[in-house]
């Protein structure tokens, strides 16, 4: 937070601002110097905020009509779909909104991986992001249980059963989670309560995430530290606001397409069958956004080790800033890392694909190779690359075209250029 010397113009404003500096905050947010070279991959922060708020608003309305009771839940969802005014719209926005939320968060995470946004001094932003992502998964999983369809019930049974793999206390924990000896009414009511709570925790963490972002400021595609404010930055408003708005609109068009023309394509047909503890579905699959982790879980023959592998796959991201030993942030200047980056993207997609397939034969083999590679990327490739990779020369500022020669040689040119730029701005 660089700008504390702001004073409101009006007397009332000053009086208020002296007591609660909301106007200073608003001023900080509008003037916030942002690198001017941010590309469209940087618009997903705004898009994600929109997704979170959409989920909260539609969720509130759904909660007014939904009944968390195993005998009534499925029927209450049908009531929403049929009899509540525009209930079908609100539910389809909420259900597809979850998928859109994850689509956006995956792009956001992979953007960070490509441009090294997790590196010093932005480790806390990154870790907060991982916690948000974990909470998102918990919220999405519990939300999927609420309609009390076949996949809800059996998905809940499979996932909660994972905890029983913990030695000694596992069984006890599972019983405690269920509130009984199987997934039943107490499970449903507590999942509903937690599903309602978590989005507000996420909202709080998002505030911290943005706060932590505003301390060092945005990373950028070139990945260098820039002077703020300077010729390399633009004020957040109106430049970034309008760009985020444009990107959000494009995102909304895709979102609307799913809601209005393919509202059930991302879900599983079995979830329109009411939960039945006596009939197990032929294939129990989680929602698409959890499939890579599901594949990792199943690729390990031992249950406990599988659970550990699955959770490690997420938790390994927490220490990523220290596993990546390269001083250069952006993959633009890391020719070898760039290739490994795309292999990782491919690897995660492969994991997602085999996660949807039965865990047998060739699929299982592929899942094992892909799982091994996933961990190798973080534990071997990243630390080693930092030492052996020869990175391309990095420009000294955003305004300066990618340079030739050493930093010292170009410094003079840079200063000259800044002067020219300042003159042209008047």
């Amino acid at each position, binding site marked *: 937070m660089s700008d504390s010397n702001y004073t409101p113009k009006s007397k009332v404003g000053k009086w208020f601002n002296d007591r609660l500096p909301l106007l200073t905050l608003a001023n900080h947010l509008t003037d916030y110097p942002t690198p*001017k*070279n941010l590309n469209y991959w940087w618009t997903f922060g705004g898009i994600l905020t929109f997704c979170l708020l959409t989920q909260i608003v539609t969720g509130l309305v759904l909660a007014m009509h939904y009944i968390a009771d195993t005998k009534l839940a499925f*029927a209450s969802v*049908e009531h929403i*779909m*049929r009899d509540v005014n525009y209930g*079908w*719209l609100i539910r*389809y926005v909420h259900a597809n909104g979850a998928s859109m939320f994850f689509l956006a968060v995956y792009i956001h995470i992979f953007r960070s991986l490509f441009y090294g946004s997790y590196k010093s001094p932005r480790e806390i932003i990154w870790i907060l992001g991982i916690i948000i992502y974990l909470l998102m998964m918990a919220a999405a999983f519990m939300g999927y249980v609420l309609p009390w369809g076949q996949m809800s019930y059996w998905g809940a049974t499979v996932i909660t059963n994972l905890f029983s793999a913990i030695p000694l206390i596992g069984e006890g924990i599972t019983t405690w989670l269920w509130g009984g000896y199987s997934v039943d009414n107490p499970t449903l009511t507590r999942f509903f309560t937690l599903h309602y709570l978590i989005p507000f925790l996420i909202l709080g963490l998002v505030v911290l995430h943005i706060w932590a972002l505003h301390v060092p400021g945005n990373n950028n595609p070139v990945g260098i530290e820039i002077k703020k404010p300077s010729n390399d930055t*633009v004020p957040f408003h*109106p*430049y970034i606001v*309008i*760009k985020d*708005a*444009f990107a959000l*609109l*494009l995102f*909304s*068009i895709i979102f*609307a*397409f799913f*809601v*209005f*023309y393919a*509202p*059930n394509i991302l879900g*599983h*047909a*079995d979830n*329109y*069958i009411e939960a039945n503890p006596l009939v197990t579905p*032929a*294939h129990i*699959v989680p929602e*698409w956004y959890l*499939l890579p982790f599901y594949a990792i879980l199943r690729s390990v023959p031992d249950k406990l080790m599988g659970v550990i592998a699955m959770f490690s796959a997420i938790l390994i991201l927490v220490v990523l800033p220290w596993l990546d030993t390269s001083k250069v942030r952006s993959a633009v200047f890391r020719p070898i890392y*760039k*290739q490994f980056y*795309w*292999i990782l*993207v*491919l690897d995660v*997609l*492969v994991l*997602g*694909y085999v996660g*949807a*397939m*039965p865990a047998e034969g060739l699929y299982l083999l592929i899942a094992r190779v892909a799982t091994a590679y996933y961990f190798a990327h973080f534990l071997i490739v990243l630390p080693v690359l930092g030492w052996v990779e020869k990175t391309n020369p990095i420009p000294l500022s955003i305004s300066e075209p990618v340079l030739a020669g050493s930093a010292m040689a170009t410094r003079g040119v840079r200063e000259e250029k800044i002067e020219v*730029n300042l003159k*042209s701005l008047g």
Partner: protein
Amino acid sequence: MKKLKRIFIIFLSVYLFQNHSISAETEPYLETEWTFKGLFGKFDRASLQRGYQVYTEVCAACHSMQYLSYRNLAEQGGPEFTVEQAKAIAASFEVLDGPNSDGEMFTRPAKLSDKFVKPYENVEASKAANGGAYPPDMSVLAKARMGGADYIYSLLLGYDEPPEDIKLDDGVYYNKYMYGNKIKMSAPLSDGLIEYSDGTEATKEQMAKDITTFLMWSAEPHLETRHKTGFRVIVYLIILSILVYMTMKKIWSRVETKI
């Protein structure tokens, strides 16, 4: 690097266009024209009304539709019977009501606000009457089966003599489209089974198509509104995007950088 990118794009497109769930059947679904598919898809009103007739004269003997009310039959976007017709349909069923002021349960003719009358009191009764198989509730059936309308249509016409290597128990039938090819419902449709009140010839295909249309509507009663609203929303968003894009270009023209 180029090559890697190409592999990546190919993989991504295969990944996106492939249904992530497993389909067990090998038979491709029978093809037929559905009026409710596509951007402007609407239900064929006459087909829905005939479909209701098939339901009530054939399916309703075993299958319930517990989330539908008789009023739905007269609502917009559905079969759109007149209110009088829907009232008459409702009145032809008896429902249990009560208790009255004497504490007695009594039966009365159904009203528009009543749910569709079920063929069996409960799941156990339906199982007992159907050799242990439970005829599923059909309210959301078209959404509860992979393949949706195409699957149901194909299944209804998919009865066949079993191949020689398959032995069927009593009360089990062979169906090309059923998961595992064994189904406990006997072929429900045959040519001329019912007499359509609008004079349409009741062929197997015609009845299968009409009942499937009816089931699609019952699973998705607001489909027409959804399509209509969706088109408006998307057109609105596209126009707004263009305007915002032009505004953005104008604003960013003050900065010497490309966006």
